[in-house]
């Protein structure tokens, strides 16, 4: 049993490692910024996810104690990776990409990043605020 688990863990670690390398390699290899964004958000999550799962199983099987923290970390990473990607993409859109390069939204409004600046609220209305 333990032998099987060990092979399984080794496989997990190797796969995870390979994906991690690919993710980071993609960061180097791909020519456009938006292409590079794909590499780590996917590959490394799987990479680190494998390592985390491996760790969990390892402690459960070999150390006899269950360690759920790895699961939490994995979930957290999966939860946050799309947000991170979204923000980096928006930052890239804002900095380096002209809105003419994008397809139209088709519904009349702009892509949110190019939405015109909000009208300024009269700051005096807020001057008495004391949130501290």
């Amino acid at each position: 049993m333990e032998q099987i688990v060990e092979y399984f863990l080794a496989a997990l670690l190797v796969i995870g490692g390979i994906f991690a390398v690919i993710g980071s390699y993609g960061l180097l290899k791909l020519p456009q910024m938006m292409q590079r964004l794909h590499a780590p958000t996917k590959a490394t999550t799987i990479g680190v996810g494998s390592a985390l799962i491996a760790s969990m199983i390892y402690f459960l099987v070999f150390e006899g104690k269950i360690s759920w923290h790895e699961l939490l970390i994995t979930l957290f990473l999966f939860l946050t990776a799309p947000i991170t990607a979204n923000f980096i993409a928006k930052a890239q859109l804002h900095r380096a990409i002209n809105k003419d390069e994008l397809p139209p939204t088709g519904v009349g409004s702009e892509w949110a990043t190019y939405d015109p600046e909000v009208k300024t609220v009269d700051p005096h209305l807020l001057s008495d605020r004391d949130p501290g």
Partner: protein
Amino acid sequence: MILDYAIDFAFLCFGLGLAMNLYRLFNAPGVTDRILALDTMVINVLALLVLYGIETRSGINFEAALLFAMTGFVSTVAYCKFILRGDIIE
């Protein structure tokens, strides 16, 4: 034991990843690339920490790993928000 080789291999992979992130960080066309590199770096570091835990049979650093994930996320968002809006808390 095969697991030890696997751990070493994983160490190598994530380390390599880290090194490539580092290269990208210095050799990046724009600041978004750098933020992306940093974000990836955090992930790789986190993985290294977890591997270190397996290697030393100790779960003592898992909270640190969790916190790396959390702070990595917050700081990436903060950098991007700064690029987008200037004011990160508006």
